[in-house]
């Protein structure tokens, strides 16, 4: 019965694909290219490229990105159900929304596209991810479909960049000038998949974004917040557990609508953990995550620790946002905490390190240590599990306090940029 429903849904999607492609045909005229892809799963798929005439030179890059995406998504989520996939290169300056249609992937390529900046590949990987999240699985909440696609493409891009440049990065930073027509890839500035790869800056700029807002404006921040939540889960649960949850969602909701609530429940079931403590806050609230180290003191206490005198050190960590990263939905009992999602790394002058944990519920927490060496630094969330943490600069305190030395290279580069801007301005006087 279930299988019959699935087959019916896929047939319906395939017929929708025909209509979808016809709606995108208006963006032509196109140059067409066909490629038969032999996927890792053993399946064969025909890839049809409808390219703008000036983008034909990008065909190989698009095919490579499509192959990688189909292979990875097929392995991570579920096999791709169609035998034909059409990638439609939308017309330059087309302002229409990208439709989510089975068998048709709209992309927005540029004529000039530096090889080391993978924005083209990201668009392909994002579009193909939408074949699962929005196509095969009818995701009812736009932010969830966008976030899942954003997260998925970041993983594919990292693999592509690694394969092409032997480095684990997402892309090179790219700036565009001349009315966005001319790109420049900054070779010295590589991007990280787990931050720039998911557009985390959009979340940083609007951390309290309303995920239910249907307008176009907050869409990037909504997608970034959802993707950052998925990266947080990836770091907290591990990729195998997260992948299991994603595969379960893709399998369970194939051809069916999926709400954010249903997705959260499926993830909890698949990972065998109650993740409602996390999803409720991310999907249903505008509360912001922000943890910090607020105090660090280390004083001799008059006792002796072996041959040396003892130090009594106090580390104070705090919660600045309303959201809590607890690790469990089980409420605390009395004075006892419940959950240990947040790690606190305390480093002593003799090089020893202590790792403590906190459930992150209280507005602040004080940790005391007696040791032969003073504490030199304290850091909350040292492995940066909580990517939704708004401000990571307040996650660490040191003794003596940190100097401005760390930011000197940026100030130097900024000054050189200013000097160049002055020289450019000198043309006018």
């Amino acid at each position, binding site marked *: 019965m279930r299988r019959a429903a699935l087959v019916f849904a896929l047939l319906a999607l395939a017929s929708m694909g025909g209509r979808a492609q016809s709606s995108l045909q208006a963006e032509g005229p196109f140059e067409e290219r066909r490629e038969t892809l032999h996927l890792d799963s053993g399946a064969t798929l025909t890839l049809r490229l409808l390219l*703008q005439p*000036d*983008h034909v030179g990008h065909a190989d890059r698009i095919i490579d990105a499509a192959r990688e995406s189909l292979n990875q998504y097929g392995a991570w989520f579920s096999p791709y159900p169609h035998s034909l996939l059409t990638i439609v290169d939308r017309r*330059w300056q087309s302002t229409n929304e990208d439709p989510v249609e089975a068998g048709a992937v709209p992309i927005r390529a*540029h*004529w000039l596209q530096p090889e080391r900046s993978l924005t083209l590949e990201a668009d392909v990987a994002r579009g193909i991810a939408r074949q699962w999240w929005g196509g095969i699985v009818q995701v009812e909440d736009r932010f969830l479909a966008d976030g899942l696609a954003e997260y998925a493409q970041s993983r594919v891009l990292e693999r592509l960049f690694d394969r092409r440049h032997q480095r684990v990065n997402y892309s090179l*930073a790219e*700036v565009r*000038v*001349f*009315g966005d*027509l*001319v790109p*420049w890839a*900054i*070779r*010295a*500035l*590589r*991007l*990280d998949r787990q*931050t*720039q790869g998911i557009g*985390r800056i959009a979340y*940083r700029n609007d951390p309290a974004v309303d995920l239910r807002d249907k307008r176009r404006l907050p869409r990037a921040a909504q997608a970034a917040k959802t993707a950052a939540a998925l990266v947080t889960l990836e770091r907290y649960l591990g990729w195998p557990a997260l992948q299991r949850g994603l595969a379960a969602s893709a399998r369970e909701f194939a051809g069916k609508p999926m709400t954010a609530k249903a997705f959260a429940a499926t993830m909890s079931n698949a990972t065998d953990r109650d993740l409602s403590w996390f999803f409720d806050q991310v999907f249903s609230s505008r509360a912001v995550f922000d943890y910090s180290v607020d105090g660090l003191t280390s004083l001799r206490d008059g006792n002796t620790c072996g041959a040396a005198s003892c130090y009594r050190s106090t580390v104070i960590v705090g919660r600045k946002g309303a959201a809590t990263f607890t690790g469990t939905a089980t409420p605390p009992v009395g004075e006892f905490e419940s959950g240990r999602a947040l790690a606190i790394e305390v480093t002593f002058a003799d090089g020893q390190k202590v790792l403590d944990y906190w459930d992150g519920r209280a507005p602040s927490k004080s940790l005391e240590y007696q040791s032969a060496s003073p504490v030199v*630094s304290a850091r909350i969330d040292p492995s940066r599990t909580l990517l939704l943490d708004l*401000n*990571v*600069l307040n*996650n*660490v*305190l*040191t003794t003596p306090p*940190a100097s*401005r*030395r*760390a*930011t*000197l*290279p*940026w*100030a*130097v*580069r*900024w*000054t*050189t*940029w*200013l*000097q*160049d*801007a*002055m*020289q*450019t*301005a*000198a*043309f*006018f*006087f």
Partner: protein
Amino acid sequence: MLMLTAWWNGIVSALRAPLMAMAIYVMLIVIAVPIGALVHEQLPVVEARLAPAVETPTPPDADWLEEVASGAGLFSATLTPAIFGVAAPITNIGAVIDARGWPLPVIIAAVAYALCWAWLWGGVIFRLRGRHNSGLTAFVGEATRHMPRMIVVSLIGLAAYAGMFLALHPLLFGPVFRSLASGGLERTAFFWRLSLAAIFGVALVLVAQVLDFARVSIVFGRPGLIGAMGRGLRFVRRHALIVLALALINGLLFAALVAAYGATEFVPGGSVPRLWKVILIGQAYLVARIVLRLAGIGAQVSVWERAETLARHSLGEGGSADQPASETGDR
């Protein structure tokens, strides 16, 4: 031939005036470094281990830049990937072509630099005219003597540029570009935009040349301001091809300089130069840019002198550089 001679003379005279180039560079430093220090002061204090790029040859971390930039107050909007190496000149020139407004720190620095140049112009033209070191006192004397008129010339230029950016630019890159490029390919749009940029660029260069030759005219002993502007205008009109060709050569040399700068920003194998090398390379590029500008001014001075000499030969002592080409024999 006149153009090539003038260009070569410009290069030679600029290279023979290293102290002048260094003095301009020092002014650039004196204005920019305090603002840079202010930026450094505004940046949040962070523990070094959060900053993976500090004095290591590993490439800088863009995520960290975003974190730091968000806490940089007034300067946060300017702390972008565009500050990296050759991206700086590309985006700064892009900002001019696209008529994007400059942020406040750049405007403040540019105004200060413009005042310095208003003082420098007289001395620079005087020095490049003589093509020999006439001494610091003479340089300072000429610079100070002509400063008020140079300020007025710059203000006239500012008004002209403002008109161009407020009227011509929006027209060219607004309705004209849209009507030419709409419905077409991106490649076609690029070439249309390039063509429009060339039109706008030529207009900008011509205005700049009129102002520059007005300045040259002032230093060459014809101090009347209105007359100088008129002479600058007539000179550019009569020697338009030479003037534009010189600007083109200077532009090509600048493009080569930017390309050379770009080649140094990355070490093959995946690392970036150390901080001290980044500073050294960046400053060397800026010094070269100053020398290039001086060479351009030197070439203008040379063209003016040559035209003036020809005019004297044709018309006796009363001849002037802005005389019609038919009268000076220069075409």
